[in-house]
């Protein structure tokens, strides 16, 4: 608006000030719109960005130790406020690692001499990491849980060490012959099981069964010992998964896999060679969930193995992926609830990986001794290292290790899956469940839904727009345009409800009817046109030109009704009475009741008005002199339309389609209600899908704030935002260009 800025008669200062205030106020208010859009963009990004951050590690405290004994093992309690160490003489020492009002970091809290000295071998439980099995030199073994307890005396929070002995405070004799147990492994889930390798080369497997003592109401644990016939004459490592599903026995590069789940004799499943030539195995670790083993080697590679269906039949362990550190692997420690693991190598480097994401999250030279002992804190928010005379404590910020570009957009080989796949499965009932957050299936669903909606909506909307703008009389147009606006205003929740509960069953019962409508409608309209042509001129003239659409309304209704009325007859005649069964059994096409066709129709209905109004506007505003010129040169109106009008208006039509696409991509309620919401990847028109938007609507209310799931849902909202931003901006840009061109014509 070019309006004179200066007002010569305005002498009153206050009025001028008011004017200026209004100007700044309004300008600020106007820019709010831009600010709002930027805020949405920025906030979505702000929530999303942390999932792509790699881990950060920070040294928190270094405590000096004055031990005369070598540290065999370190650990941290559940809360991460205490650290414990097991010394070579069987002493368990607790220290505080944080400074609280009533104690300082490094303060010694408990020195407990365990009844085993010296310690020959020890093992941690793979699931409850603070449960230790400690073996002595005479075949005896002690189970001790190095825990902690929290109490609040005088409203002060105090964390105290707490030891618990599941099998009693005295060691149990595992080997009746009294040989030292050189290697042990323990699992306590669903009963206590011990595996042990004796100095005289026997592999023992002991099950402890609880037996309630009637007199004292205490529980006695009764052992039953089995000897396993291993082929090895020396054993380097034993690993036992929770519930004793597998016992891994490693000797050099070979690993025996035993199945000890059932109560009988454990069975040898297979022997796997886990390292090739040129590298020796240095250590074996169980990944959290214990379906995978990690094999560390002397050339600095770590390989992940889990059971898959073999090509030659049966199931067996196979190498899935490899990780690399700069020097020979010394030890591997795993996070308890996630698939992350920490690797210490011979050069004193520490590297943090995430197994499923196949991602290196952090690496740094900590200059640790090869003899250093390390433990990841149970909540994976830090780790402790006993390195020579020092106990070092590190804080780790590593909130979302499982997400990377690869896990979101590429095929990932999850544990238990036969091959790498795109999977969206965010939650499940199982405890050891790993969320599978691939955006590919739901993005696919979005594209599929939009595609079918456009397939249905674009032809009708464009044809309708062309007719309304170019052929229709103004009188009828004055009725059609508001009707289309009403169509645009219909709440999508109602369209979705009708699609899901009315249309879906209707179409399922009348499949032949749907097919007939598709064929019969165009034919019906053509026949109407021909019949109209044959009518006497008198009747034809009574309906003025530009009312053809009104004439076709009745045939459209009639054809639609007729097709559905005849549907059962046709079904009987062609498909043996049940078209659905015929489709599944004879044609082999799967059929979901709520499928892409329903979504296509319902969402097509929703996008028709969007496309219609923009396209109609574009066609209608083609300058009159162009069409008049064409007609004057002898072209008929159809030729003028196709050769002049549509060509001129084509950017506008493109822009209309883009706008419709933007709407179809983001539509939520219709797809939520008219699809089964299963994240499958199947182009079939008779299969369902799950879209980005419906996925957000379904899962957002249940996701915990700032969890990985929450942030990935924000990411899918961000993807939607960017997609629609792209379509809308492109459409608007094209439209601006077109408007400029029209005004110059």
């Amino acid at each position: 608006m070019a309006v004179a800025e200066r007002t010569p008669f305005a002498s009153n200062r206050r009025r001028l000030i008011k004017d200026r205030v209004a100007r700044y106020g309004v300008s600020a208010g106007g820019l709010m719109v831009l600010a709002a859009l930027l805020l949405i963009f920025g906030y979505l990004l702000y929530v999303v960005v942390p999932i792509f951050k790699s881990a950060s590690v920070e040294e928190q405290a270094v405590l000096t130790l004055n031990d005369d004994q070598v540290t065999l093992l370190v650990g941290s309690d559940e809360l991460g406020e205490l650290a414990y160490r097991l010394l070579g003489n069987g002493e368990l020492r607790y220290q505080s690692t944080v400074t609280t009002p009533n104690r300082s970091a490094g303060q010694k809290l408990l020195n407990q001499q365990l009844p085993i000295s010296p310690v020959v071998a020890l093992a941690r439980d793979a699931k409850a990491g603070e449960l230790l099995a400690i073996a002595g030199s005479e075949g005896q073994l002690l189970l001790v849980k190095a825990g902690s307890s929290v109490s609040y005396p005088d409203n002060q929070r105090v964390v105290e060490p707490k030891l618990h002995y599941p099998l009693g405070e005295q060691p149990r004799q595992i080997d009746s012959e009294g040989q030292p147990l050189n290697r042990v492994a323990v699992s306590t889930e669903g009963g206590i099981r011990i595996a042990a390798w004796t100095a005289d080369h026997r592999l023992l497997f002991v099950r402890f069964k609880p037996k309630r003592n009637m007199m004292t109401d205490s529980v006695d644990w009764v052992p039953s010992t089995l000897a396993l016939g291993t082929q090895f004459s020396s054993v380097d490592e034993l690993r036992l998964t929770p519930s004793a599903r597998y016992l891994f026995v490693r000797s050099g590069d070979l690993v025996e896999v035993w199945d000890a789940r059932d109560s009988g004799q454990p069975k040898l499943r297979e022997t796997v060679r886990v390292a090739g030539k040129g590298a020796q195995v240095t250590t074996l670790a169980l990944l959290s969930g214990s379906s995978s083993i990690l094999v560390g080697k002397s050339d600095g590679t770590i390989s992940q193995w889990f059971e898959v269906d073999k090509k030659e039949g049966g199931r067996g362990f196979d190498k899935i992926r490899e990780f690399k550190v700069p020097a020979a692997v010394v030890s591997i420690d795993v996070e308890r609830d996630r698939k992350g693991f920490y690797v210490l190598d011979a050069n004193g480097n520490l590297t943090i990986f995430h197994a499923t994401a196949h991602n290196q999250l952090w690496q740094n030279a900590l200059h640790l001794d090869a003899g250093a002992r390390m433990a990841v804190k149970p909540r994976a928010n830090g780790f402790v290292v006993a390195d020579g005379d020092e106990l070092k404590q590190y804080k780790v910020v590593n909130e979302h290790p499982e997400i990377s570009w690869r896990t979101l957009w590429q095929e990932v080989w999850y544990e238990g899956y036969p091959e790498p796949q795109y999977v969206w499965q965010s939650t499940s009932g199982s405890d050891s469940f790993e969320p599978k957050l691939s955006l590919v299936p739901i993005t696919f669903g979005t594209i599929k839904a939009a595609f079918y909606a456009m397939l249905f909506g674009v032809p009708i909307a464009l044809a309708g727009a062309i007719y309304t703008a170019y052929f229709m009389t103004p009188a009828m147009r004055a009725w059609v345009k508001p009707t289309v606006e009403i169509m645009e205003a219909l709440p999508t929740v109602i369209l979705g409800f009708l699609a899901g509960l009315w249309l879906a069953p209707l179409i399922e019962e009348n499949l032949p009817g749907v097919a007939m409508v598709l064929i019969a409608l165009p034919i019906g309209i053509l026949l109407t046109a021909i019949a109209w042509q044959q009518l006497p001129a008198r009747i034809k003239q009574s309906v003025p030109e530009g009312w053809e659409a009104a004439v076709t309304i009745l045939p459209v209704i009639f054809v639609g009704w007729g097709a559905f009325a005849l549907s059962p007859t046709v079904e009987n005649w062609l498909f043996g009475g049940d078209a659905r069964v015929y489709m599944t059994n004879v044609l082999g096409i799967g059929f979901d009741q709520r499928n892409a066709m329903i979504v296509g129709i319902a969402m097509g209905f929703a996008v028709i008005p969007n496309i219609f109004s923009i396209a109609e506007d574009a066609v209608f505003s083609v300058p009159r002199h162009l069409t008049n010129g064409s007609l004057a040169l002898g072209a008929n109106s159809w030729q003028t339309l196709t050769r002049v009008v549509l060509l001129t208006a084509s950017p506008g039509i493109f822009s209309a389609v883009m706008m419709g696409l933007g709407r179809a991509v983001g539509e939520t309620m219709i797809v939520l209600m008219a699809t089964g919401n299963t994240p499958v990847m199947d182009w079939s028109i008779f299969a369902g899908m799950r879209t980005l938007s419906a996925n957000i609507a379904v899962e957002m209310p249940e996701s915990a704030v700032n969890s990985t799931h929450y942030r990935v849902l924000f990411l899918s909202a961000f993807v939607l935002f960017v997609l629609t931003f792209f379509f809308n901006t492109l459409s608007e840009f094209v439209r601006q260009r077109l408007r400029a061109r029209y005004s110059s014509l």
Partner: protein
Amino acid sequence: MNKWFKSGSPWIWMTGGAISMSLVAVLGLLLLIAWRGLTYFWPATVYEFEMRRQDGVVERVIGEIHDRVEIPAAQLRGSGLKVDEDVEFVNRFLIKTGNREFVNLDFRWVLETDILSRRVADDVAVIERTKNGNFYGYPLRLLEKGEPVSGDLLPELQSRIERVVELNEQALDLQKGDIGRINYKLERSRLAERGLELDGTLDDAARSRFEAERAQLRADYKVLENDLFALRDQAERDALVVRDMRGEEVTIKLNYVLDVYQPNQKNWLQKTGRWLVQVSKFLTDEPREANTEGGVFPAIFGTIFMVLLMAIIVTPFGVIAAIYLHEYAGDNVMTRLCRIAVINLAGVPSIVYGVFGLGFFVYMVGGSLDALFYPEALPSPTFGTPGVLWSALTLALLTLPVVIVSTEEGLARIPSALRQGSLALGATKAETLWRIVIPMASPAIMTGLILAIARAAGETAPLMLVGVVKLAPTLPIDGNFPFVHLERKFMHLGFQIYDVGFQSPNVEAARPLVYATSFLLVTVIVTLNITAITIRNHLREKYRSLEH
């Protein structure tokens, strides 16, 4: 003919067909919703069927015919049902039998071939109850405290039902009004005490004051509770004995009965009256039985309240933005960016607004508000949880472009001669805007607002994240200070449709109600839109005459 094809005329007809298909689809849809939604309230004829079940047992079924489909007999044979060989098509009826506590399903599909006889059951009564849905049966006699009551059955029954309904209403008023108020005060007292404790200023005097206050409230509560129990006892006095379709006598306590009606004895005038009553009940009643029965009043109230709140928020921002874009902004990059922002705000999917509202408004802004002003209630959130204020804000953002576009169109239609005239007479630009332009544009602003309201009333997806619940125990406005509770969750017509239609355990029972709710929502939205369109067209005419 060939020439006719070459002339392109068939294609013109085809494009005409496309537009008529769209029109048929829209009007058909509206008619479908209207028909299904409105017939729900019509008192349907109740039939008594004599039918042979598939296992050969003959039984009697009383109920309304709810739906009818014709299916090929082969399909039925395929699914293992016995149908005579010579039949090609079979009608299948969906019969609503009610009596939910005695049958597995209160809706059943029945094949026409299995029906031996069907007659209009004259004396049958439809008993509307607060629990277990409708009951169909023949009323036999009334019981008062277990003793039969003499006198004319039906008039007596009506008067006793009126008494019970009255008593139940009193009890509900007591429960929601006075008892609700005491509970609210108790909670506030607890919060006040906790607030002092957090400040470190809670001394023994204050503590005993709070104790005394609460003791008084609890004593009041006891009194009211006794009143409530007394009312409920009185309501339990009467019972009705009914013979149901199995031929057994069933005693129905009257305190669960809302209404007894004998549809088969009424003429159409009486039925119309009944229909009107049912419609008004639908609009003003609370929902019952997980929203599958009863009315939608809280949803109507919630929708209107949220939408009005949104309108209050969106109008100033939208109008100011439009004035900026049209009156102040120069032709520069900033303005173009602003326009792109408007287009994109209009095109961003609504669910993205929901996600943004949940993260930004609810967790960030709401969470900060809680930490600042409501620390005593933590860890249970006050504003840091989805609520009506956040819904209104989210939808305000969503409808902002609607108001902007409409207002800008209005501004563009005002001839610039008027502005120039005002400026020439010495008015400042602000004065011109305030005195001349905005008053002239007010119908356009109104149009934008109406369109925004229509859009907001139908929007559901974002609300599912920022404040809607399937059942809100209290309305956002009540008699407890501060009367308007913006932090509360609310019910919404659109969400009601989704929730009842798709999350309800008894879909057949819920479906008619969903149609009725849809019809209500569609009526509101279509009316709003038609109003907006009319105002706009009127406006265009007016300015067209001004220009010449």
